[in-house]
């Protein structure tokens, strides 16, 4: 009960912090503009003549790669730089409660930005007859993907008091998780590595899971995958914070 109250208070504070600064608005505008640009211009949404959102979701891993670390970099690095971490952790808030609160606020914010892309599925619905189940599954996978990137960013943010370092590390971490399942990488790997290793690396990557869900496959394994990535990164974050704050 107290834990939930603490997390909720932290989440509320973080949520407000996003909207108190221009960060939230700039992020949402750029995210929507880029999502639209990739879908309609680069992805040739109209020309494809298909009422689905494949070209829309196709670009999300790459959009998130840059944008999510920008949302996450502040979360701990700023607390560290300003010394407010000391304040927070002496108000009887535990690192786990604070992590949960920050994660919830930032993820909620990313989901809000994602939800604001609703005109795109509406367009598809107006022009044709998309499979709404696949659309929903696509949105769900995109939200999970954003959460996984965010967990990586939260971890790198806890490592440093410098937001730029946090950002760069998060991008590198995210890039690794994308490329691990990317075809050129798996092909390259399969030339010399044993099959189990290729499969292992591919399974650790975002892409296979994300693409499976894009096709509307709601396999439990994909949920377990994203939940494990998020859980593991948050666990590492807690280790780092325990070590620094010394608890």
């Amino acid at each position: 009960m107290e834990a939930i109250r603490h997390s909720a208070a932290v989440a509320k504070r973080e949520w407000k912090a996003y909207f108190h600064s221009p960060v939230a608005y700039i992020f949402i505008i750029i995210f929507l503009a880029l999502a639209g640009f990739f879908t309609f211009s680069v992805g040739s949404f109209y020309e494809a003549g298909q009422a689905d959102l494949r070209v829309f979701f196709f670009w999300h891993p790459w959009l998130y790669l840059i944008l999510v670390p920008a949302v996450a970099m502040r979360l701990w690095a700023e607390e560290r730089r300003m010394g407010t971490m000391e304040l927070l952790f002496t108000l009887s808030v535990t690192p786990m409660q604070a992590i949960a609160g920050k994660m919830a606020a930032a993820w909620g914010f990313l989901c809000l930005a994602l939800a604001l892309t609703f005109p795109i599925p509406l367009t598809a619905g107006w022009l044709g007859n998309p499979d709404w189940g696949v659309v929903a599954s696509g949105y769900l996978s995109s939200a999970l993907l954003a959460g996984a990137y965010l967990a990586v960013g939260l971890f790198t943010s806890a490592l440093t008091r410098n937001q730029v370092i946090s950002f760069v590390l998060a991008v590198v971490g995210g890039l690794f998780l994308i490329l691990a399942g990317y075809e050129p990488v798996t092909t390259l790997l399969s030339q010399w590595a044993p099959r189990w290793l290729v499969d292992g690396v591919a399974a650790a990557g975002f892409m296979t899971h994300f693409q499976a869900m894009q096709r509307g496959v709601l396999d439990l394994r994909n949920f377990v995958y994203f939940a494990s990535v998020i859980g593991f990164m948050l666990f590492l974050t807690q280790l780092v914070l325990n070590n620094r704050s010394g608890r």
Partner: protein
Amino acid sequence: MIKVEHLVKRFGLRKAVDDISFEVEKGTVLGFLGPNGAGKTTTIRMMAGYLPATSGRIWVNGIDVNEDPVRAQRQIGYMPENTPLYDEMTAGGFLEFVAEIRGFRGAERSRRVDEVLDSCMLGSVRHQPIETLSKGYRRRTCLAQTLIHDPPVLLLDEPTEGLDPNQKQVVRDMIERMAKDKIIMLSTHVLEEVEAVCSRAMIISEGRLKADGAPAELKKRSASYNVLTVEVLAPAEEAAKVFGAIPDVERVEPVTEAGGKQVLRLIPKDRQSLAVGVIEAAARHKWMVVGMRSDSGRLDEVFRQITTTDDVIRRSA
């Protein structure tokens, strides 16, 4: 009650805090003194449950801080060094946030926030972002944060650092008002502050506890304690000779002489009180004593004696 037993904190090879033990009773305002880097902040951080002790134990009202920091922290209001605050929040919003974490909701929360805004005189800046506040308001906002849950223990790390004299007085007045039913421990290197508000002072140097007692008691260790300045109407040489003959007087230093009035400084042996002896001696010679002042000692002297000896020895070695 606070109890600290054989507290040690090591950072790598360096011992920041080296075997400190003490107890503090309710109603005490404890001044924690020491030069920069002596281990004050480290000690307070450990007491606040932010840093774990390398060894030793800390109890706050019977709760072991290392074992259960969260429960201990409910008993503590802690003001970290350099007043870290969430700059983008308003002063009022920040206090609401703290009140929420401290477990107050609804009307009770508003009442608590109003109360501390009022007692810390922050009402006028309630809706102002913290980043726009002056240093004095920042300090008071951080102090207000410690009071929301009316904790029995306050740990304040340099609460008046960087304030102007009026603001310092405001903070001291607040401390004095709260003193009787709390334990207040404040670190500082402003000695006048200790004399002004503290009922007890501890001096640490290089991680070790070097002195512990009431400020008035500590001052007795100073070299100038009980040095007597006498203004007497008497012939110069004779006065020095007579006073110098008093058994407890170590030596006599003439200060000024004008129109038959001598001003003399009498340095006592072993910091003995000299007043009675001097008055008797003057009476015997029918000299008029027009002024007399006994030095009550100076805390800064004691502080320097205790905290610089090691340095000085090392430098000359």
